[in-house]
């Protein structure tokens, strides 16, 4: 068989390069899509990402529907934030790929520095009425907690879930505990009475509390951080780029938690189902947003209430906690930021703050909630929320630094090693966590 000859022009010698170039171009030329779209009628559509839970989606849909009727020229499209390991990661991925929404209503203030570094969000204090709107809601001191490192504001502090201790009051009462523990020793004393072996098989099957000790950074926002805020009367974990938490207060917290695990007051295992609602666990660190779930799934005779975060013995004054606040931001991909700002003002109006309370039992970050006529009826009907509203006054936010996740990861690792598995003494664990955190900050 005669082999086939293919003759190629000399120019084809350059062809591989050209093909490569073409390929690279075609790969890199992904269309940069913007989430803001203008349809043929000249109307703008803004995309609004809400948290994924049903209550908040409900809220977002209701508010958007109302707005859309009143503002036919600017339509709001509500979408739940896409799922991912944490919403912070989803947002950063969206920034990197240019697929951010126009408005996002669930930003954790601790992650703000990432968004700022990525230059992905709009400066909000540039709007002339920014301070008027915000000072109507909160004191300048409280607002200051949300100021970014460059001195400007890029977020609207919107709602908060101050962390408190949820108790099964019937179990406390049956164990002979008459008031909510306020100090470590009161908590431990109550735990000793509550924790027991109910069916007599030699194994503990009723515990004081559960703590999800799986070392993921954000879990420590709901136990270590409120305990730290309570123990130090609201001191910060960092000052500038210096780690401040390597102190006696942290050691006391580690010791307290360690005793809870070591004495079996807190189980070293995870469970299927809700052991709190099953009546096997007496206490849990939660925010008011847990009420929706409790009300929905509790049995008719299930009693619960909220107590303060325990503090070192002898502490006085109003207890402080972590506010777990969430903010609203506008992304730079938004082509109608002014309209987006108008919509945000609509969302945070008093009327909708009440709706937020009604639908999701989350607190709007607003001073004087309990004195305000608008909310009086709500708090009368929901007395359990009053405690959270009181806690909100002294709850604090968290400083935003880019390495926050890593530092909380370091804390989580040490909590696991020392508190849960007893591999090192609390002093050593706190020291190691602080040293590693400082190394993380210094490495930058």
């Amino acid at each position, binding site marked *: 068989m005669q*082999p086939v000859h*293919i003759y*190629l022009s*000399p120019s*084809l*010698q350059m*062809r*591989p390069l050209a*093909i*490569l170039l073409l*390929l690279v171009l075609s790969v890199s030329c992904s269309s940069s899509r913007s989430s803001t779209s203008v349809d043929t009628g000249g109307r703008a559509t803004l995309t609004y990402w809400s948290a994924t839970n049903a209550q908040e989606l409900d809220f977002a849909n209701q508010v958007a529907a109302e707005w859309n009727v009143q503002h036919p020229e600017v339509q709001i499209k509500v979408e739940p934030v896409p799922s991912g*390991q944490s919403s912070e*990661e989803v947002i*950063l991925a969206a*920034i*990197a790929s240019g697929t951010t929404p126009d408005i996002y209503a669930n930003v954790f203030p601790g992650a703000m520095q*990432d968004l700022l*570094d*990525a*230059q*992905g969000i709009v400066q909000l204090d540039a709007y002339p009425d920014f301070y008027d709107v915000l000072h109507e809601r909160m004191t300048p001191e409280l607002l200051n907690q949300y100021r970014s490192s460059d001195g400007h504001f890029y977020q609207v502090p919107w709602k908060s879930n101050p962390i408190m201790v949820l108790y099964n009051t019937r179990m406390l009462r049956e164990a002979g505990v008459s008031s909510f523990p306020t100090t470590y020793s009161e908590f431990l004393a109550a735990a000793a009475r509550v924790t027991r072996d109910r069916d007599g098989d030699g194994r503990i099957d009723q515990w004081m509390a559960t703590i999800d000790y*799986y*070392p*993921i*950074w954000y879990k420590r926002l709901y136990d270590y951080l409120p305990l730290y805020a309570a123990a130090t009367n609201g001191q910060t974990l960092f000052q500038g780029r210096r780690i401040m938490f390597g102190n006696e207060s942290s050691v006391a917290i580690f010791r307290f938690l360690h005793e809870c695990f070591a004495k079996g007051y807190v189980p*070293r*295992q995870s469970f299927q189902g809700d052991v709190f609602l099953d009546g096997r666990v007496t206490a849990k660190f939660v925010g008011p947003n847990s009420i929706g779930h409790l009300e929905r799934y509790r049995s008719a005779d299930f009693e619960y209430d909220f107590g303060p975060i325990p503090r070192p013995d002898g502490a006085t004054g109003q207890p402080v906690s972590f506010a777990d606040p969430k903010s609203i931001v506008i992304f730079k991909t938004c082509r109608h930021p002014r309209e987006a700002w108008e919509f945000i003002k609509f969302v945070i109006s008093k009327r909708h703050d009440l709706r937020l309370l009604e639908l999701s039992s989350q607190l709007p970050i607003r001073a004087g909630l309990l004195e305000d006529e608008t909310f009086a009826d709500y708090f009368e009907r929901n007395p359990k929320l009053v405690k959270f509203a009181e806690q909100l006054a002294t709850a604090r936010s968290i400083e935003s630094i*880019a*390495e926050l*996740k*890593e530092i909380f*990861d370091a804390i989580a*690792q040490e909590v*696991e*090693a020392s508190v*849960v*598995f007893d*591999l090192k003494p609390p002093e050593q664990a706190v020291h190691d966590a602080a040293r590693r955190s400082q*190394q993380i900050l210094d*490495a*930058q």
Partner: protein
Amino acid sequence: MQPGEANKFSTHNETGVRGQGPGAGKNVAVPSQALSDSSPALLPLVPEARHPAPDTRHLTPDPIGYVMVLPYLLHLVIFLGYPLAFAFVLIFHRWNIYTPMKWVGLGNIRLLLSDPLVWRALGNTLYFLLIHIPLQLVIALGLAQLLNQKIRGRAFFRASYFLPFVISGVVVTILWQQLYAVETGIINVLLQLIGLPKIGWLTDHRFAMPAIAIMATWKNVGLYIVLFLVGLQSIPSHLYEAAELDGASGWQQFRLITIPMLNPTIMLVLVLSTIGGFSLFIEPYVMTGGGPANSTLSGILYLYKQAFFFSKMGYATTIGFFWATIIFIVVLIQRRFVETEAM
């Protein structure tokens, strides 16, 4: 490469024509060897005599050649060359994907050398290998020996042992998570039936890594059984016949014929499971997240955390290169050590 060619070599080898180096005469059917040895055999296939050939010593580059290798070159450049070069550049930078890269010089390397978790991961990996490799070798060789006998349903057993190897790692891991569950897992149920206490397989920092090593052995053993089977079948039967005539017992035959003749296969299994051990990721990622108390943190899992939890791409690539270097050194040591022993 055809099987026939490998056979051709085996005859060459046994007659000592091509036998070079200590191991070459004995190992015939080990894939890697066959691959590297067979390339010269392809040469005669190139038709030369058909054309009035031009002066082959002054070949002008034929552009069609470039076009024909283009798919491979493109693949190499896009999926290997570019990422590798980019990763190397990243070693000296801080980069979190969404902000511009920043030069940090040797900062990442200094960080790596002083990072206790890197050394923890290395220790964990060595611990994993210490359990996994001996277990793997013994079980795979034992089963291969069994499956090499004439037993009923041999094909079925061979396929069954190979099955876990082709099932998705995540699926296997989730299944084993159920087996290892403290309260409801079947392993603990069985332990309690025979009067032993429950073990927190994945929740106790002393047991988590052994638990993962056992699972990894179960998953990969099929591949190594096949490799050992190939090795076993390539041992000439006259060696055993001669030994039997000399009165060697079964154990003596195994120790003095099978093991030495399998040396190249053992080497291959050793190298493959070492590399597999160093790239341990899915199992701890799905089962334990590196815990409890970092006892199952592997190098790749730590790299992944740095890259995708903390957005430290520069540091993650530094760990990656460090890990690749260690694998290279360990394999080098193994080759030297095990191959010398075989001589």
